[in-house]
């Protein structure tokens, strides 16, 4: 279970402790702090038209959830809110007990790089960089400058970690020096998973990663994804409109059930 990631909360608590003392105490003291906690969340791009209205939703550590819903029900918006790219109008999104929206821009960037891994439908890798460079770049962004000894320690084991990650994702070992654009789409998505997981995130957000894959590749990919997420000790939020993928998950939820606006919205749409 925690082969790849032995004490990530300890590491993170150290690096974040100066700035988020209270939050880190929460992490340290209360193992029951959910990976993601959404409370009274309200968001809209245009003031009169709320897109997200969630009373309460949470995801436990290492828990895996499959969120499905038709397009336009606010899936991507919710993911952007959780990853801190968007800020809620009202309410709170906490990741590991930290209210992302309350962080300053640069802290938020660092927090996201260290705690949240994201894989999108496409464009997850810098096409002209090698697989190794892509993953190292992600490590570089997450790397805390105040954490020199740890960084050096990482340096010695970096290659090894990347190699074992790629191996776990059943990628051929020689692909490490290939450019991202030279890989097949399925391989690219796996490298994207590796890149998202290399910083040992607490939450892995995956948004329609299989839409470009055929059925056989989809199943293989899903298997690798869920296994790796578990072994990385990361909570997994998997979003798709494809309900056939639901069988890979224990917890399956429809976004329309959680999101009140989404539940209300299809009705007027159907009428018109």
């Amino acid at each position, binding site marked *: 279970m925690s082969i790849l990631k032995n004490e990530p909360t300890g590491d993170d608590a150290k690096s974040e402790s100066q700035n988020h003392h209270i939050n880190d105490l929460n992490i340290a003291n209360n193992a029951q702090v959910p990976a993601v906690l959404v409370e009274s969340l309200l968001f809209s791009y245009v003031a009169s038209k709320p897109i997200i209205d969630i009373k309460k939703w949470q995801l436990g550590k290492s828990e895996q959830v499959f969120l499905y819903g038709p397009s336009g029900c606010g899936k*991507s918006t919710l993911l*952007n809110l959780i990853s801190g*790219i968007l800020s809620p109008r009202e309410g709170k999104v906490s990741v590991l007990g930290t209210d992302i929206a309350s962080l300053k*821009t*640069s802290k938020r*960037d*660092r927090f*996201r*790089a*260290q705690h949240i891994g*994201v894989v*999108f439908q*496409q*464009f*997850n*890798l*810098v*096409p*002209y*960089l090698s697989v190794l*460079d*892509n993953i*190292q*770049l*992600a490590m*570089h*962004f*997450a790397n805390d400058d105040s954490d020199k000894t740890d960084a050096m320690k990482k340096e010695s084991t970096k290659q090894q970690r990347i190699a074992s990650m790629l191996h776990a994702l059943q990628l051929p070992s020689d692909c490490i020096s290939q450019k991202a654009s030279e890989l097949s789409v399925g391989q690219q998505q796996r490298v994207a998973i590796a*890149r998202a997981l290399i*910083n040992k995130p607490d939450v892995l957000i995956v948004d329609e990663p299989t839409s470009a894959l055929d059925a056989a590749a989809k199943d293989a990919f899903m298997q690798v994804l869920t296994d790796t997420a578990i072994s990385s000790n990361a909570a997994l939020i998997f979003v798709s409109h494809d309900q056939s993928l639901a069988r890979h998950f224990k917890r399956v939820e429809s976004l329309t059930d959680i999101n009140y606006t989404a539940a209300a919205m299809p009705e007027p749409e159907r009428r018109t």
Partner: protein
Amino acid sequence: MIFRVAKQSLLHRKVSVMLTFLALLVSVSLLLSIEHIRKEAKSSFYRTVSGVDLIVGARTGQINLLLSSVFRVGANANSVSWESYQSIVANPQVEWSIPLSLGDSHKGFAVIGTTNAYFEHYRYGDKRQLSFQAGGRFTSSGENGGSIDSENGAAKMSAVSQHFDVVLGAEAAKQLNYKVGDEIIISHGVGKVSFSHHDDHPFTIVGILQFTGTPVDQGVHVGLNAIESIHTQGNPSLSKSTMSRASSKKQQDTEHVDAEHEHEHEHEHEHEHEHEHEHSDKAAPQPANTPLETSNKQDSNKHALVQPTQVSAFMLGLKSRIAVLQIQRQVNQSKLEPLSAIIPGVALGELWRLVGAVENVLRIISAAVLVASLLGLSTMLLASLRERRAEISVFRVMGAKPSFVFWLLQLEALSIALGASVFAVLLVTGVILLSNDWLLAEYGLSLSANIFSVHTLSMIAVVLIATFVIALIPSIGAYRNARSLN
């Protein structure tokens, strides 16, 4: 890491990067070479003459006098009488003087009648003295045309075998393919084609000057007396043109044609006599302190030595620079005849203001070239920004700060500009080094290959700053893009 990413990113966009690089390379090279040539032109212009305190000639504008005496362009219609010359030179403040007799040419090259003082005191550039690549100065006899052929010198009164010494400028020697010891014929007038050839006055080349990058290179220098001698004997008709050869060139040429017909010779003689009369009263005996050294052979051939009656202009070196204005005023108010004295630096400055418009044109051209290329650079960056939208969002997904994206684009733009600038410096230096001989041979242009200067560096700095400013447009665009992602 950002350097690695920038490098890979540039490699990824090889074609458009190369095109932008080449466009910038060409324009920065152009910019550097135009600026370099502009600076070199200006400095070589100001280097034409130095160390001369005053130039004196018959009354005329200072630019006219400068052009005729230093640049050998045009000619002053009037001359300075030998008497006036001597009286000014006699001033205790005068350290040295170079008399100049101008207006003749040899195969298109200006003939300058002067004395050895010319090689002694004339300065160009950084107060550099003229030096010889071959031979040396006028010999004392050759300067005055006093050397005679012992066999027939006495027999032929028209002094057929007189020898005059010639010192050639580097460019003249090169183009005419003359070497020391060659005998040449000097003709009249300033045109390349002249009808009057003094076949009876052979000139012997005794020295060839080093290249100076000034009009001296085009000069054919002979003794002051040599010019007087040709004009007063052998072909007497020509003596008149000593007076007014530049002002009445056409008339002169007709005369020369006429002169070739023996039977019209008498008619021409009358002209000569008039001329002699006019000046007989001005021909003063040579004072002791004259820079002209008279050969003792002159007595043996009374036709060989003709006392100079006039000079076109003369250059003065003073003992103290403080005396410059004083002497200038004295000369300008001279009662003997109307004269002008100019300070070369002042006159050069005034002349440069006239021709300096070229300098501004060059500046405008180089600025336009730079602006055009920078616009090209920003176009390339903006165009690439569109196709990089996805890439930028990837960086953000990976956890990159917007500032990373900003600096990535800046780094790419700046490295293209820096690379282009460095290569431009190398290119321009290389081209100047390779083409220096050719430029010297074809255009008499001597460019310093050292284009490194504070000026060059500041220009490159301007290029880089301009690149940074222009790259702000796409970079800020990318930054904004990165802020409002997904």
